[in-house]
């Protein structure tokens, strides 16, 4: 990376110190961003985010220093170590990992950097026009960005890793308004190292326009408890919120009661339920070769045949819990230390067709696409971009957006059927500990859940 300290300088800065562990991470990210609101292009620009950090561990306490000026790296190392000394009162416990020296170069399918701004703008103009040309659409929002990120990681244990990636994200949204009533239909798409993924959204754009207008005359769901069928995109969000966050060990490792709840071997679902997380699944938004502690990416079984069999770790949570590292320590950028995060999280498919999934439902809700989701660990909510009533085994009328809520200990158990299809939602960004949006993906087949509390908005 241009103007960053080179390997020699970094390794010199990491030599001879009295900390248990020290690491340096340098980050140079160039982003192109285009925003539309209605017919007006609101914003177009280039954003350069350049900086680094040093993290030091002394007797179980962490010191962390971040900066934009990469000169005087040795001084930063000393500052971080001094802060760590201030904190540390116990014993450092990092899971052992072999040092890695590697340079991971881009494998780009279609490189957004090679596409002129004029071409990107023409494409977005087209999507915008598709949405605005639907009668009744009063406004739109489009957010497009592509980011090229280069990261260097080095540790006092001898790791030195260079990695780079390109994230392409596009969010389209159409608004329809009638009297005081405002309705919106949105879609987020993302891809790793591939611009082509967002090149043919014309049909989706038109569909969003039509959907926003239809919602103005759609009814609210009658609040209550229903059997619910989720499409793969929303089921992926459900999996992320309802279970994924609970499998992040930083919520567990210092919490004796949480350890009892999340004890390996506990049954969380029926025997058909299998949930996996892994950055080693190639080509998805949550994919990478090494995490931000230099640990190689893996695939980790979280739930196998309904039983909790694994969880996600940083080196510290793995060390303290005496379990194997999983390569899930991630930081959004140089301003933050890595924390335990998901990567690509998915429910494995079963064997039912969509028609079979809904056939037995007299009155239920079919929820598709996502608006958002959040969790408190025990309880979670997630909201659908589209929803329909299911009546007598058939998809019936369109509903206004619904919100679904559940409880970890009952809702996973209530998944009673899994579809035979599979898709990944790559348009979302995950937030935790002030670090948002972190690129992740989540996937699932269609799933059916009994007894879900559905709210009317």
């Amino acid at each position, binding site marked *: 990376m241009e103007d960053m300290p080179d390997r020699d300088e970094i390794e010199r800065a990491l030599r001879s110190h009295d900390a248990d562990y020290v690491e340096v991470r340098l980050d140079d990210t160039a*982003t192109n*961003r285009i*925003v539309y*609101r209605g017919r*007006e292009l609101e*914003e*177009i*620009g280039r*954003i*350069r*985010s*350049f900086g680094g950090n040093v993290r030091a561990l002394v007797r179980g*306490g*962490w*010191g*962390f*220093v971040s900066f*934009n*000026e990469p000169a005087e790296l040795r001084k930063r190392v000393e500052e971080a170590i001094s*802060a760590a000394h*201030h904190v540390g*009162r116990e014993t450092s416990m990092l899971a052992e990992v072999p040092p890695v020296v590697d340079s991971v170069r881009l494998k780009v399918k279609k490189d957004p950097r090679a596409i002129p*701004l*004029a071409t990107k*703008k023409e494409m977005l103009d087209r999507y915008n026009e598709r949405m605005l040309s639907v009668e009744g659409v*009063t*406004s739109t929002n489009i957010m497009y960005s592509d980011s090229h990120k280069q990261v260097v990681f080095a540790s006092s244990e001898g790791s030195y890793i260079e990695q780079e990636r390109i994230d392409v994200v596009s969010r389209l949204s159409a*608004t329809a308004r009638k009297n005081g*009533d*405002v*309705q*919106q239909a949105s879609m987020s798409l993302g891809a790793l190292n591939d611009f082509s993924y967002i090149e043919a959204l014309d049909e989706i754009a038109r569909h969003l326009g039509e959907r926003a207008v239809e919602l103005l005359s759609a009814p609210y769901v009658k*609040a209550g*408890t229903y059997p619910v069928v989720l499409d793969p995109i929303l089921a992926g969000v459900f999996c992320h919120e309802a279970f994924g966050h609970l499998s992040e060990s930083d919520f567990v490792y*210092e*919490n004796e*009661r949480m350890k009892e709840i999340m004890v390996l071997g506990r049954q969380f679902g029926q025997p058909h339920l299998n949930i996996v997380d892994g950055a080693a699944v190639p080509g998805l938004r949550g994919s990478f070769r090494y995490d931000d502690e230099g640990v190689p990416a893996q695939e980790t079984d979280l739930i196998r045949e309904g039983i909790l069999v694994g969880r996600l770790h940083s080196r510290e949570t793995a060390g303290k819990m005496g379990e194997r590292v999983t390569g899930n320590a991630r930081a959004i950028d140089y301003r933050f*230390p890595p924390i335990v995060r998901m990567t690509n999280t998915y429910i494995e498919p079963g064997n039912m067709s969509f028609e079979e999934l809904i056939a037995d439902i007299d009155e239920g809700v079919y929820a598709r696409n996502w*608006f*958002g989701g*959040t*969790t*408190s*660990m*025990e*309880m979670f*909510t997630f*909201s659908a971009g589209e929803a329909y009533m299911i009546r007598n085994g058939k998809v019936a009328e369109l509903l206004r*957006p619904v*919100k679904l*809520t*559940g*409880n*970890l200990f009952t809702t996973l158990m209530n998944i009673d059927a899994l579809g035979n299809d599979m898709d990944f939602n790559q348009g979302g960004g995950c937030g935790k500990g002030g670090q948002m949006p972190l690129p992740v993906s989540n996937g699932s087949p269609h799933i059916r859940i009994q*007894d879900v*509390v*559905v*709210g*009317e*908005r």
Partner: protein
Amino acid sequence: MSRWAGDWCDQEVSLTDAEPILAAARRLGAQQAEVFAVETNETPVRFEANRLKEINSRQTSGAALRVIVHGRIGFASSTKPGDVEQLVTAAVETAPFGPEARLDFPLNTEAPAVEVFDEAVESLPVDEMVEAGQSLIDAIRAIEPELLCDAYIRRGDSRVTIANTNGGMFTYRGTGYSAWVNGTLIRGTDMLFVGDGDASCRAQLDLGAVEASVVSQLENSRQTAEARTGELPVIFTPLGVASALIGPLTIAFSGRMVHQAQSPLVGCLGKEMYDVRVSVWDDATLRYRPGSRPFDDEGVASRRNALIEKGTVRSFLYDLQTAGLAKAESTGSAERSLAAQPSISTTSLVIDDGEMQFEKMVRSVREGLVVEELMGAGQGNVMGGDFSGNVLLGYKIEGGEITGRVKDTMVAGNVHETLKRLVAIGSESRWVGGSVRTPALFFESLTVSAK
């Protein structure tokens, strides 16, 4: 890139030194240019599982550049020291594709003297922050020893500079100090989350009030109670108002949303849309509030904006570009980070006090809910004013008394409709999250769904 390299002296120019950047933008053909530069130093101290876990130090500096070339706005920003040449080139290169400029960067104007800087924060020792966090955790755990607490104590100082080619030059220093504590209590598979915090520009926080708030949350949650599905009266505490209602309410006052006909309040200026007891202000001039500043992030002088006065919609909020598009005037509401162009935002949002004490509200309810925090309220049709979420922390009222905490319960409504059907506004307002001051709000009936 090389066409002006000859003009450039070899010595590195700091990104926070605006003059050379403006000069370079002019040389590359910008008719107007504006630099927004920030330097911040932050020290967050983090406690995990009742113990000190991590001391951080974050230094950030960088600049954003807006240029107007042939009537269009180009933009670039950078945090790379000395990255002036690339910054200016990128901004000018994006301009031909950018939006038509409907603004002129402002001249120097009279800005109010707003106090946002306290030297005591700058020199606050880390030991004192550690002490503050530990004593807060200890005080709360004295009430409930099984509580597992995380805390986050942060001090920070910043310098903001805005300079433009019209001669406008605005700069100020600000400080911030805040403390947050979150506690988790797990019994079997039941998880209770409590928490609160305080923030100020001064090195003085009311940790006693934070402690008292968390203790009251714990006491109200000792028992659990069953909510039922139906239309029920609901009282939002100040924390509840901030977590569920402020977002969907304030987005409707964004001049950008109004101009784009995305706000439900289009055409409502001057109309009585809410209960006449409702008055809401956006005020960037309050002393030592974290949302305060002498001028906004484009250099427009801060002021106190009435959003709702006695139920009537008084004004929408504008930055310069949106004001230009909507033929309105900037309300000093431009807010920005280095990563994007200015957007419209509230500063400190203040809802005027009402007449009823919280206890009296509770006593008057035969069956209903108190909401302290609604989880997921920011999802769904926020733009249309909808709020809905799972009651992360809230209580059941039966026969005029709080009988326990509710779970697996959703509350939903539309903020523009429910603010017409208020029973009462609380008489005891407080700051929540540093930038919202609100009393409790008591609604006649909202949709409750429960298992």
